[in-house]
């Protein structure tokens, strides 16, 4: 048989193909409202900003989506949203890649075969029709969405025996239990860090990963900028970002931490016998207690989510005694059943055969539930399991039906911020695949023929806003006046945690600052983002105290086997600074299976050790350390000038004038704007939001573990981590310094590295032939070379990267192989601002680089050097210094030095 194609047929086919490729992205079907009040001109290539919200563990964080041609390409903060305050964190920055992730589930799957939504709906309804939902369980993550809660309630009305189980692997069971004990009802503690003069953390990491990181970071930085400098004490099992920023921090085992509570109680009350404390701990408690007591009303004690309920109860007492700046609000999550209890009950029911239909929406118990529950085994007893996921996971792999769940940016939904503020989240793009939102899915369970879409459901539940109110709420992604009001609470009773003196190592399972509980493991940006403190990428380790490692005869990077209860993991050990003796710390999110090429077989699953019980650590193999992007953290001798640490009242020594033969440039009234950046290392919390914001904005490719192993990196902005004092650490974001006398420029043989009139050190990709002399001669080592064709190679394995290309910023060149690239100060944003200014005949306005826009603590300021403003203020600051200023490079990016309160005065 032959196919006859004449010329016209071929032309028709070409036209069809071209049309199909143009129709790749489409706006949502319903009208969505841009944040700025201007007509939605359909001019191609223009950038439109829409406010919306992205949930993390159920809690909303407002974002501004940057949309070009109906294609969201970047997420930024949303100033009005209380959990964003205009900034982002790593998880908000990487969300855009999840949208375009080629590993996404694209179509309903029945077993290994593609199925249809009708098929799945029929499969569910055939089971529920006859009964009142008996034996049917809906398992979700934390739900704060009023609409989704309403739909679940409606579903329960139709099927009274249906159970809704909500479960988050990163739970807040301990603080809620402590609140129950202290106040007789479940309450959530909301510290007001901006009002805290003295903070003592007990294993707490308010500046670390979580739904509140941005807000906490901002409030903490606000206070830190004010004089006199606030004090921060930290007692914790392993170093956290908060601990790194502390004036004094001590690592403590769980037993020592409990002892510290006893000691603090004794010091605060003055009428108790202080327990025996190790000397350094006793000193720290004495100082902390003195400062806390002196700052009554402005002193705050915080306990980490991983701490037992007794520690939280003790902290509740301490805070009420100190009259601490803390609000207690009714939990935003209306379900106050302990998470661990709900999942354990569910597993027991499944094992006992009491569950015949399990519908999982956005939860992954097979991966993250305690191994003792044997969730995967229990699933075998359930006749019908339907799992709705954006990315296939361990649970969906064992389900009968896998249904594609829409990304938050593809669906209408609503959710509440950790402070209760509700957001209506508009989609920025029509679903890329045949997916449904959680709201639509719950409706589908209730009625296989349901034709109401998520938009109608969300609109229904906010009908009280009226049309104008609705538009306003959608455009701003905030429903006004919905924040929870602080509860009036009684004085909390004193509870002292028991001092556990059982022998053996304590296992600390911490939330990964890059992958969270594992939900971001599939995200290549997250995997390649260095962990803030060890700079590990593409892998997980067991952090241990060197003495503990010596005891079992292992060195840094040797493989250990850690067994606890029902779980065993095998990972490389890493000797880290600030680790408590007797504590082994692991990060969640690794050891994934069945999820795709990015996350599978990376590291080991720390949730296997979350069950508690006696642990055993033994040597299990050879040296195989996890990759890191930084290997030296200590700054000895003269290197200390790279990261100066000052006392609060100290000033940097003024830089010596550089002898030069070149006369300074004459002042020029018509000179274009001069751009500069100032980075305050005193409030940089090392969160990595800037690193990934830069990656998203500037089309920085992911290069994968093999390339990292050879010592290559592509991030334009790196965050250097250095040791501070005996126990702390500090962070120093290093983008291009944009030197006025740049060492990279004279060495380039083809003039690919040139200076612009605005003071930028520009890299002309087209002209670059890749001699790499510029990077060899760069004292800051901020240039990045495309050793291979990174922008066209994929870390997504068979899935390819065609969908990821849709994320790319059309304003930024995609660099080919053999070309040097580096931080441009987001020159495309500068150009856009100057273009606008030209068009409107007004002076160039403010420009924010992607990193500065992302920074939760506003540590990065970008602006003009030739005008009075933030940059000039920063340069006049007594803490101002230029990195390696003595080389005479005259960097445009400069720093403000870190401060540490002196440890032991008075």
């Amino acid at each position: 048989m032959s196919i006859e194609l004449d010329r016209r047929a071929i032309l028709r086919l070409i036209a069809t193909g071209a049309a199909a490729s143009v129709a790749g992205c489409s706006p949502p079907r319903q009208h969505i409202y841009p944040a700025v009040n201007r007509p939605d001109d359909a001019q191609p290539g223009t950038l439109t900003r829409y406010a919306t919200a992205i949930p993390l563990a159920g809690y909303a964080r407002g974002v501004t989506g940057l949309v070009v041609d109906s294609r969201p390409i970047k997420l930024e903060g949303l100033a009005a949203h209380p959990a964003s305050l205009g900034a982002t964190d790593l998880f908000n920055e990487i969300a855009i890649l999840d949208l375009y992730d080629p590993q996404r589930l694209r179509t309903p799957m029945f077993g290994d075969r593609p199925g249809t939504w009708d098929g799945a709906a029929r499969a569910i309804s055939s089971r529920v029709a006859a009964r009142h939902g008996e034996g049917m369980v809906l398992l979700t993550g934390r739900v704060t969405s009023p609409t989704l809660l309403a739909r679940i309630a409606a579903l329960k009305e139709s099927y009274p025996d249906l159970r809704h189980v909500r479960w988050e692997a990163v739970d807040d069971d301990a603080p809620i239990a402590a609140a129950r004990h202290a106040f007789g009802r479940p309450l959530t503690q909301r510290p007001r860090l901006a009002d805290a003069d003295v903070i003592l953390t007990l294993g707490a990491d308010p500046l670390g990963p979580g739904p509140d990181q941005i807000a906490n970071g901002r409030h903490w930085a606000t206070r830190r900028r004010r004089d006199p400098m606030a004090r921060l004490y930290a007692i914790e099992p392993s170093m956290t970002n908060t601990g790194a920023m502390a004036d004094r921090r001590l690592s403590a085992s769980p037993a020592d931490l409990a002892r510290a509570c006893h000691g603090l109680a004794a010091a605060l009350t003055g009428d108790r016998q202080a327990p025996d404390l190790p000397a350094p701990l006793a000193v720290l408690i004495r100082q902390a207690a003195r400062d806390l007591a002196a700052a009554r009303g402005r002193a705050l004690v915080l306990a980490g989510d991983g701490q037992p309920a007794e520690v939280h109860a003790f902290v509740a007492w301490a805070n009420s005694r100190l009259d601490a700046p803390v609000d207690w609000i009714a939990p935003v999550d209306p379900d106050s059943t302990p998470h661990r209890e709900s999942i354990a009950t569910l597993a027991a029911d499944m094992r006992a055969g009491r569950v015949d239909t399990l519908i999982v929406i956005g939860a992954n118990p097979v991966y993250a539930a305690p191994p003792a529950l044997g969730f995967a085994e229990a699933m075998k007893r359930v006749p019908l399991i339907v799992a709705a996921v954006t990315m296939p996971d361990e649970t969906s792999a064992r389900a009968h039906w896998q249904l594609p769940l829409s990304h938050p940016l593809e669906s209408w939904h609503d959710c509440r911020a950790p402070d209760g503020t509700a957001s209506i989240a508009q989609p920025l793009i029509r679903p890329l695949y045949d997916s449904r939102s959680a709201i639509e899915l719950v409706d589908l369970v209730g009625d296989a023929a349901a034709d109401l879409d998520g938009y109608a459901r969300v609109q229904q539940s906010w009908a009280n806003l009226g049309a104008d109110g609705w538009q306003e709420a959608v455009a701003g992604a905030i429903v006004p006046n919905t924040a929870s009001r602080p509860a009036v609470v009684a004085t909390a009773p004193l509870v002292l945690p028991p001092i556990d003196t059982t022998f053996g190592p304590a296992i600390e399972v911490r939330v990964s600052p890059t992958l969270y509980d594992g939900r971001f493991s599939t995200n290549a940006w997250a995997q390649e983002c260095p962990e803030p403190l060890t700079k590990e990428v593409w892998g997980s380790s067991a952090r241990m105290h060197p003495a503990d490692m010596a005891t079992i005869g292992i060195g840094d990077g040797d493989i250990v086997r850690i067994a606890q209860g029902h779980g065993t993991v095998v990972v490389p050990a890493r000797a880290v600074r600030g680790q408590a003796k007797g504590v082994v710390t692991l990060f969640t999110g690794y050891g994934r299976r069945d999820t795709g090429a990015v996350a599978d077989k990376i590291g080991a699953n720390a949730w296997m050790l979350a069950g508690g019980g006696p642990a055993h650590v033994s040597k299990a193999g050879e040296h195989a350390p996890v990759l890191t992007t930084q290997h030296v953290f200590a700054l000895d001798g003269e290197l200390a000038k790279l990261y100066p640490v000052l006392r609060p009242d100290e000033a940097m020594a003024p830089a010596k004038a550089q002898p030069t033969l070149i006369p300074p440039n004459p002042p020029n009234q018509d000179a274009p704007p001069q751009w500069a950046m100032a980075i305050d290392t005193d409030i940089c919390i090392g969160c990595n939001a800037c690193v990934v914001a830069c990656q998203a904005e500037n089309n920085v490719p992911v290069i994968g573990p093999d390339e990292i192993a050879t010592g290559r990196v592509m991030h334009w902005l790196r965050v250097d981590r250095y040791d501070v004092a005996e126990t702390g650490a500090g962070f120093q974001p290093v983008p291009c310094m944009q030197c006025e006398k740049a060492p990279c420029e004279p060495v380039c043989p083809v003039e690919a590295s040139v200076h612009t009139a605005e003071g930028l050190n520009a890299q002309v990709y087209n002209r670059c032939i890749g001699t790499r002399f510029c990077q060899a001669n760069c004292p800051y080592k901020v240039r990045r070379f495309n050793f291979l064709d990174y922008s066209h190679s994929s870390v997504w394995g068979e899935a390819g990267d065609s969908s990821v290309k849709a994320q790319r910023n059309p304003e930024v060149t995609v660099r080919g192989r053999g070309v040097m690239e580096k931080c441009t100060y987001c020159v495309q944003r500068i150009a856009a601002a100057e273009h606008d200014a030209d068009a409107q005949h007004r002076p160039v306005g403010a420009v924010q680089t992607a990193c500065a826009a992302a920074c939760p603590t506003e540590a990065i300021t970008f602006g003009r050097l030739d005008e009075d403003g933030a940059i000039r203020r920063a340069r006049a600051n007594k803490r101002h210094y230029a990195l390696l200023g003595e080389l005479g490079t005259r960097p445009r990016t400069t720093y403000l030095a870190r401060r540490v309160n002196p440890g032991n005065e008075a």
Partner: protein
Amino acid sequence: MSGVQMRHVRKQSPRWVLPSVTSLDHVTEAVAAPMMDRPAGPRYWIAFATMAALTLAGALGIAFSLAYGPGLWGNNSAVVWGFPIANYVWWIGIGNAGTLISSLLLLTRQKWRASINRAAEAMTLFAVSMAGIFPILHLGRQVYFYWLFPYPQAMGVWPQWRSALVWDFWSILSYLLFSILFFYVGLIPDVAALRDRPGKRGWRRFYGVLAMGWQGTPRQWRAQRRLHSIMAVIAVPLVCSVHSIVGLDFAASLMPGWTESIFPPYFVVGAFFSGFAVVVLIMLVIRWSMNLEGLIVPAHFDVMAKVILASAIVMGSSYGAEWFSAWWGGERGDIRLVVYEFTGDYWWLYLLMLAMNVLAPQLFWVAKLRTNAWALVGVSVGVLVGMWLERILIILNTLSTGYEPSFWRTYAPTIVDFIILGGTLAAFVLLFLILARLIPVVSMYEVRDLLADERQA
């Protein structure tokens, strides 16, 4: 080679041609006969096949590198330079000796150079060719290497003249062109002699074309001598400038360990040093394989060993000067670099380099070892290894520890790096093997000159 220990050299009035060489014809026959009349033996073909295979492997390594990019090598984001730059500096250094032997010794009327200068010049030509591969190969986008050339184009963009890499481009280019011309001018009388010698027609025609109508008239001789001498006068500063500029590739920078004013002369001496080591090896092989014991005599090796010894002392002093100036200057970055050289990631390579470059040649204080074949081979190979290590360590030590400790990274070469380096070594030998069957490896007319002088004396 006849016996490992060559006959000892008399101090007074050395004879550079053995008495066994009796007549001027004898010289021509001794050089030309093995090449033109006798077939290449199985040893030749085995060596040829091996080298051809290794060259092919190297060519494949280069082809893959061109296709996939520099990512196939061990270079990383901090140590952005690696094998290609080290190989380049090493190869171009080797080329140095050939030019200097021909020109400097010609100008100073060192007649003994007659029997070794042809091979030394060929060595220069081949070494510079090998060196020339690397600056282009090492680029990220090799196809645009010509942007270093100030050719007229619509954009009006020129090379950036402040960059040492542009100077480098010109110095390699001029050096290569000059070496070809110098080699050829010195070759003309000999190819004419081969043209006139009985032999196969095709070959004679080939030599005839090369000889460009050389008839040996007094006028031609005068012109050839004059041109050769003038070129020699140009060659000495040229060769010094080439290696100075190679030194400036590093010195015209901001990095500790590179910004050293001693680099240009130090690179010239280093080049001379490694070049002589290669000349020694080549002469040993030619003498043995082509039965030229009568023309390449122990006295030659004695002289060359002395040159190597002297260079080793200069090299040692240069290292000492680097350490001293770091200490005396007190620049923290420089001191850290010197400490890193001895205690850092590559400390054993550094010590090995010092042993090879400074200690091993000290053996040549012993007169007997200067004419002992094994000692000559051992020290020469040692110097070559040592000098290559020096080149790579200049790159690695500085780039592995810059100003920012957060970006300190070590370097590990890949198999492709080694294949390409091995490929150029094989190609170099292969070119020599081909050369040995094509043109006289000993300059016949200059040796005849020398013989005539000695017979007169």
